[in-house]
């Protein structure tokens, strides 16, 4: 039996065609837009967040609010209070970056049924540089009570996540990403709070989220040839964490490494470390952006710079296993 999940991975996942994670946004919104309660708000980034597809299909329920992310968060809350379901879209660096306090009070404290799409997550944003690379958004959102935090690993998962967020009553943050990366997962009914095990292994658990998930699978495949069996978990829901699946895996491997395109302080890796530190302490290594700002450049070059590319990941896993 294959160590790779048939349930979640397409059979040609290794050579999957590329699509940007953010591309999943438009299609999902057009689908759920059949529900007249769905409204989309934009802060002058409809095209690059991919909500423009909704705007074309449902122009009466699309509102371009201009470059004003703080106002957008408040407007979204007000729209939600009347019973509609607003999705608000911008770059993660600005929303929740610039409007965090509006999200905190108008949305989270108020339990507003608002869905926040933060595009251009991580240094994968590339050439526009650190000002436009959302590298703290997961930390900012997961500390907020009432907030659910999601990160899709590919465009297909992004679609199903948006559909799941639409069904959940309450504030949700969904982080997407800019570059074209392998679209390697099968479409299935994404369940918030239930993460996916993509590969079975016994030697080390790799907890990954976003673009690094596919790379982690490739690393696992390479390491298998060297006799190392990695378990690969896609931490697709960062809050609430799937305690059972994560602890069960840690219990089996007794070694956990986390990989994300985000500051290691406060991100997904921190969430895993908090959980395991309290409930099942095992050695943990966190990979990510290590207390630095991002860098302007071609995203794959930037990934190498920060050690998020496959070669660096593989070396990190090997070094960690030999510690």
């Amino acid at each position, binding site marked *: 039996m294959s160590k790779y999940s048939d349930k979640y991975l397409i059979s040609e996942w290794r050579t999957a065609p590329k699509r940007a994670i953010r591309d999943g946004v438009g299609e999902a919104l057009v689908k759920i837009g059949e529900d007249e309660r769905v409204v989309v708000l934009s802060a002058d980034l409809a095209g690059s967040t991919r909500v423009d597809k909704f705007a074309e299909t449902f122009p009466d329920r699309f509102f371009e609010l201009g470059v004003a992310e703080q106002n957008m968060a408040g407007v979204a809350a007000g729209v939600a209070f009347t019973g509609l379901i607003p999705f608000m879209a911008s770059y993660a660096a600005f929303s929740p970056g610039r409007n965090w306090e509006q999200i905190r009070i108008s949305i989270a404290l*108020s339990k507003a049924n608002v869905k926040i799409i933060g595009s251009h997550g991580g240094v994968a944003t590339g050439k526009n540089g650190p000002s436009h690379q959302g590298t703290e958004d997961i930390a900012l959102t997961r500390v907020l009570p009432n907030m659910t935090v999601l990160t899709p690993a590919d465009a297909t998962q992004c679609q199903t996540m948006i559909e799941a967020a639409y069904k959940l009553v309450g504030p949700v943050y969904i982080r997407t990403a800019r570059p074209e990366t392998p679209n390697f997962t099968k479409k299935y009914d994404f369940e918030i709070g239930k993460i996916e095990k993509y590969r079975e292994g016994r030697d080390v658990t790799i907890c990954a989220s976003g673009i690094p998930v596919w790379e982690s699978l490739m690393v696992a495949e390479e390491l298998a040839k060297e006799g190392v069996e990695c378990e690969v978990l896609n931490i697709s829901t960062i809050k609430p964490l799937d305690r059972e699946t994560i602890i069960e895996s840690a219990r089996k491997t007794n070694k956990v490494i986390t990989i994300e395109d985000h500051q290691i302080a406060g991100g997904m890796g921190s969430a895993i470390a908090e959980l395991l530190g309290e409930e099942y302490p095992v050695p943990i290594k966190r990979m990510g952006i290590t207390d630095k700002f991002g860098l302007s450049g071609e995203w794959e070059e930037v990934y190498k710079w920060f050690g998020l590319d496959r070669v660096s990941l593989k070396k990190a896993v090997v070094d960690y296993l030999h510690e």
Partner: protein
Amino acid sequence: MGPALDLQRVANQLRGDVLRMVHTAQAGHVAGPLSAGEIYSVLYFGGVVDLAQDKIVLSCGHYCPIMYAALARNGNFPRSELKTFMQAGSRLPGHPERGSLPEVEVSAGPLGQGVSVAVGMALALKIQYGQRSQKTTPRVYCVLSDGEIQEGQVWEAFNTAVRRQLDNLIFILDRNRIQIENYVAQVATYGEVAGRLEAFGLHVLEIEGNRTDKIMEAITQAKEVMGGPVMIVANTVGGKGVSFMENDPSWHDKVPSQDELTKALKELGEKNEQV
């Protein structure tokens, strides 16, 4: 006794409740809630607002004692509950939290936020009521303060309200000219507030904000305005109704002593009793 006189009486009753609440809690804000006595009297008791379907949003959240007082007098919850203001577990927290009472529409406190939320509500109500005439679409009334408009978010919200032609949205700016640290004019230079608001495209009505008849008139007029939001600039006096509190920034959030409470209630024509 005409209706305007009744509303004036109500305004002072609300002020009395504000002072009792703040004194009991030994915390809270005074000057702002007092300046807005007539505004809240008219909004809840003037008959110009359809309380069954319209929304009243308090954006300057520190004014909440006057909102709680109005809701209690309106029968939304027992008046005796006012004494729980700011106590742990109370439905009357120190700044409004949406849902603590069904009528508390927005969480507020960090200034400016409620203005955007009010814009979102008005926008969404217009979507939902679609082709129905402006007269049947629920309206949103949003109370904000003149210190509050130092927040840039407020001006972002005005842009949206004007761009989206939200004629079911009526702002009431309590221009009491004081804020925590000092007089507003000392803290930030505004020039002509009304002129700046007009320049943003708002339909501005400037009135004497401590006169219930003027507020009634302005709201009635505002409801007839088509094509965009109305801004009622209510020129008020901070700490209105209590001589030694009026126009003095130090009363922004000072708790009156027992003596001061007694004197204040007497000036307001209110019984010297706790809530």
